């Protein structure tokens, strides 16, 4: 069986990776708490029972799509419309899934099938950074995905059950994921090419967000900026 793991504990690699996985996952979990609680509160106000919120978080596990689904449910949307909207919002994960393949080559398909379930914006950013640093492996990455998932499911159900009693915005916790994205972006900027590509992505994203309705700005801006960066790199290599 092909493996890229440092097999300190070959029989239970998942257990051996629990500590590094949890260490990497905690900023995500912290950030998911307020968002999950907020989602639960909104769902409860929209008339969803707690078990439906739990079912949704387990089966879908995609924050922005879940928020939009709740809004659409309140507005009386049809089931096909909600499924189609979810599909469009979550298409961006094809990019993340493709990029993760760089570090999961020749891993057995059953593992990949399980791993893919937990690919979110947040777990992707944390795992890609750790993989690139070189001290990461697929078991630790899976733990990041699954811990984030567990916290998400618990937070959304809790929000539905007693969310009205949690004060909004306590301790600046609403900024946890933004702070995490800022630091992970810093980790990604490992040279001038990455800096230029990142600036392009940010500028294109803002422009796209302002002028094109919907959520296409994430995919649109990142694909455009990465492509421009790629040609810049090619041009530079040829002339340099």
């Amino acid at each position, binding site marked *: 069986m092909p493996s890229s793991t440092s097999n300190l504990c070959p029989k239970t690699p998942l257990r051996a990776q629990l500590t590094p996985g949890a260490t990497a996952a905690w900023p995500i979990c912290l950030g998911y708490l307020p968002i999950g609680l907020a989602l639960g509160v909104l769902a409860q106000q929209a008339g969803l029972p707690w078990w*439906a919120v739990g*079912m*949704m978080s387990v*089966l879908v*596990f995609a924050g922005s*799509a879940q928020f939009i*689904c709740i809004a659409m449910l309140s507005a009386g949307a049809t089931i096909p419309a*909600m*499924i189609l909207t*979810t599909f469009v919002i*979550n*298409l*961006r994960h*094809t*990019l*993340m*899934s*493709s*990029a993760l*393949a*760089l570090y999961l*080559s020749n891993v057995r398909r059953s593992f*990949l*099938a399980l*791993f*893919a379930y937990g*690919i979110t*914006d947040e777990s*992707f*950013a944390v795992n890609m950074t750790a993989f690139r640093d070189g001290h990461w492996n697929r078991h630790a990455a899976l733990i990041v995905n699954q811990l984030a998932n567990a916290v998400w499911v618990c937070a959304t159900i809790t929000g539905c059950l007693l969310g009205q009693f949690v004060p909004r*915005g306590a*301790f*600046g916790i*609403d*900024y*946890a994921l*933004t*702070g*995490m*994205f*800022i*630091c*992970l972006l*810093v980790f*990604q*900027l490992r040279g001038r090419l*990455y800096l230029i590509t*990142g600036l*392009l*992505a*940010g500028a294109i994203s*803002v422009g796209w967000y*302002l002028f094109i309705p919907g959520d296409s*700005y994430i995919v649109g*801006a*990142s*694909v455009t*900026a*990465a492509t421009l960066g790629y040609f810049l*790199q090619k041009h530079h290599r040829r002339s340099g």
Partner: protein
Amino acid sequence: MNFSEYLLLFGGMGLVTYGPRALPLLYLAHQKMPPGLVDWLGLIPGSILAALLAPLLFCDPQERSLQLDRPELLVALPTLLFALKTRSLGGTVFVGMGLYWLAGFVL
């Protein structure tokens, strides 16, 4: 909605979410990727992070308009400096949260 309607809705949403997450990985992990694609994919994480982050900092989500004096942006500057200086993920999250919390009182 009853149980089976919820199951149909969330099951459907789950399938169309899982597909884009799983299919590229299942396919590409067992392919020899061309070097050009590897280079391009290497630029994707930073691009996605910047594309996610920039509208959070520079735009008002309700109005969907440019707004350059948002507390999110003001707090981002010292948070960014802290991240550059310390390269600590946990520290950056806490500094960002603390400053954002304080900004809520001051601004």
